[in-house]
């Protein structure tokens, strides 16, 4: 490959795709995932799984909860990536984004800006964790996959996501910006 071709090749990875391109590709990924894994895309079940494992390891919780934990632990003495495939996919999301950022020369190690930002991230994470746990899913599993599966729960979850985003936007203007 000469210099010119090399440049062209490199440039191909640079431009951002349109939202519609993203929407089309994500939908194709969803459908293939449904066919191959017999389940739509989801993310937070992996967090739930490891939270339960950790809790089982530390040994606290309600008896009902315990049954689930031990059940999960008995026949899962295998390699970590076999235990919970959603975890493997989540790791793939991180590395896929890293790959994309590197090929487009957009990777930047961004420092934490302030204590305020740190608190907002921790609190936001905490709220998302609790919410996704009780509603069985996040923007992907409960909203995107839920509505895609023509489940009424997806629409209701989405409606209240919007309500929450309105409240969050107000908080953002009041305290953070």
């Amino acid at each position, binding site marked *: 490959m000469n210099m010119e071709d090399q440049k062209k090749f490199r440039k191909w990875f640079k431009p951002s795709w349109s939202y519609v391109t993203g929407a089309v590709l994500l939908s194709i990924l969803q459908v293939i995932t449904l066919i*191959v894994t017999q389940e739509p895309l989801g993310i937070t079940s992996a967090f739930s799984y490891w939270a339960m494992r950790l809790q089982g390891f530390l040994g606290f919780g309600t008896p009902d909860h315990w049954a689930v934990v031990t059940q999960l632990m008995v026949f899962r003495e295998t390699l970590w990536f076999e235990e919970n495939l959603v975890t493997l996919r989540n790791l793939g999301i991180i590395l896929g*984004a890293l790959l994309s950022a590197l090929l487009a020369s957009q990777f930047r190690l961004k420092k934490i800006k302030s204590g305020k930002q740190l608190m907002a991230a921790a609190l936001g*994470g*905490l709220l*998302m964790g609790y919410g*996704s746990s009780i509603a069985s899913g996040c923007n992907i599993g409960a909203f995107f*996959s839920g509505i895609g599966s023509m489940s009424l729960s997806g629409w209701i979850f989405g409606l209240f996501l919007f309500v*929450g985003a309105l409240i969050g936007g107000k908080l953002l203007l009041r305290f953070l910006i």
Partner: protein
Amino acid sequence: MNLGDQKKDQFSKQFSTGLILFAILMMVAIFLFQYAPIIAFFWISGLAFGYILQRSRFCFVAALRDPALTGSTAVTRGVLVALALTTIGFTAVKYFYHVNGQTIPGQNYIQSIGMNTVVGGTIFGIGMVIAGGCASGMLMRIGEGFKIHLITLSGFFIGTMLGNNHLEWWSNHLLWIKDGVFLPDLFGWVGALIIQLMVIGLLYRLAIKWEEKQEL
């Protein structure tokens, strides 16, 4: 070497690192494939998911936040397109299994509806806006180099643990429809598809109108 050259140098360095990373990721994929093809699929689909999210700047948080905060509905419309296309694809797959008398895949995503949906959705919505990323966005941004989202992830994990321990309470209180509602059960396959696509279309028009109104 002037500043511009240094910048260029750094760019080509990132690109080469990217190519090496690609080679490593593919080697892992081959290893996993030999282990079990389905495991390799989870790996590759995750990589594709992350790649698409980063390249198209697709963000579910912005889709739900920006109409009220900045008045922009560009991402919102992108998400609506994704919802419409996924609905069509999923329904085709599900219908195919249904007419062939096989178990319809993914029906465990038809969730029960109750106060947990309302409260869960609302606090998830607040959390994602405060943190500036949801589950997928947070993972994507960790890949882009945002250290802050490692904190978000830690908070997410602790929140999940808390929620898990209250799950029993939520499933015994204020649960309105235990088995959830699969819309085709109510309106038939074609009816449900048409109604859902019409609702998405209506929201799309609303999003365009909303943005036009902001510009005036």
